[in-house]
């Protein structure tokens, strides 16, 4: 089976549930943002030392969850196929909150804004965080267009993306600390 279909050369693409939509539709836009976010997390994983295998596993788990969110976004809410998809639930959001709390407990208290950057891994985490925020805005756009059943299906994915940006912020600080790089506070 070929990876390319050549059926999108005139600006349309097929949703997972079969509908033909313009490639700049809010739904495909949101899919693209989640895809970009996932890609950046992959880049982040590639610069985290192998010794931090627990963290790598966490990030790869998050990447799998982002695939689920991509599939949910790429499926029309009224499609019966939606029933077949794996969901993102409140438990996933709580899991992410627990990971945030665990990482944050190892860091010094924050007293102000920080400049994004530091070690390469921290920089990737910050870049992923910024894209995560953009993905969140795009999912909100999808929700604004979606009828009620669609809104409820995206409730927890939206919350997950929101918490993920917080996780990535804390992770960036963790990466700097573990590589001996101090936080750089913002100065007016």
């Amino acid at each position, binding site marked *: *089976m*070929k990876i*390319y*279909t*050549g*059926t*999108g050369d*005139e600006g*349309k*693409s*097929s*949703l*997972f*549930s*079969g*509908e*033909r939509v313009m490639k700049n539709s809010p739904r*495909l836009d949101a*899919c*693209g943002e*989640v*895809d970009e976010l*996932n890609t950046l997390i992959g880049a982040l994983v590639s610069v985290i030392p192998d010794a931090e295998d627990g963290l790598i596993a966490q990030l790869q788990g998050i990447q799998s969850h*982002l*695939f*689920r969110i*991509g*599939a949910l976004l*790429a499926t029309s809410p009224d*499609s*019966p*196929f939606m029933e*077949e*998809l*794996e969901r993102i639930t409140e438990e996933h959001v709580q899991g992410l909150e627990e990971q945030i709390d665990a990482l944050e407990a190892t860091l010094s208290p924050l007293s102000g804004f920080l400049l994004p950057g530091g070690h390469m891994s921290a920089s990737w985490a910050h870049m992923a965080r910024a894209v995560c925020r953009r993905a969140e805005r795009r999912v909100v756009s999808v929700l604004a267009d979606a009828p009620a059943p669609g809104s409820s299906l995206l409730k927890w994915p939206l919350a997950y993306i929101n918490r993920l940006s917080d996780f990535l912020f804390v992770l960036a600080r963790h990466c700097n600390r573990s590589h001996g790089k101090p936080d750089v506070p913002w100065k007016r």
Partner: protein
Amino acid sequence: MEEVSHMSTPPTDTRKGTITLESRRFLTEDTFEVSFRCPPDFQFVPGQRIRLHQGQLSREYSIISAPGDPHIRLCIRMIKGGRFSVLLAAVQPGARFLYSGPTGHFVFQPSPRSPVLVATGTGIAPYLSMVSTGLKDFTLLHGIRDELETYYRDRFEPAARLYVPCISGKGPEEPASLEVFPGRVTDYLEQRLPLGAYDFYLCGRREMVQDAVRLVDARFSDSRVFMEIFY
């Protein structure tokens, strides 16, 4: 499905095992069916594929048998210069292959719209598995070179609302049977299928799928499209 497919959840089981070829029967000069005993833990949805491995070679094929069938059956056309299809056409029953899968999302999704199944050649394979599990009242357009290739007609006709072999290789003369459409499946979509919203399932050659999608976008714009490209 272009970029969307790259990020969707793949219902893929990557376990590998060994399956044994039990039988083979030729349907035409270059198209044949092979049958393997189904491993007890191999579960799939009609429309999905299995990947066969032999040495460094591997190929995916749509399964034509139904889930629960004691055999996994595949419909294969020998491709000129093809290595795996030629191998499968020649090996003796008892030959063993590694397999992995199932893979693929080309599964039937019920909806209020009428399903229109479109295939070229052995692209009809996934529909056979769907029909074996109860799919009916569909329109099926099967693009073939001649009437010898209507090899599953007796399986589809009882279930289909309309079964139309579309014969493109006949040349200018009239087809031997009046129950065929003299032209490509895409000609049928353009000239005969009433305007409306359908669920299109497209399986087979890339050029057919591309042309059919263009027609759907132009003529059947509120339709849904599911596609599987064979080669």
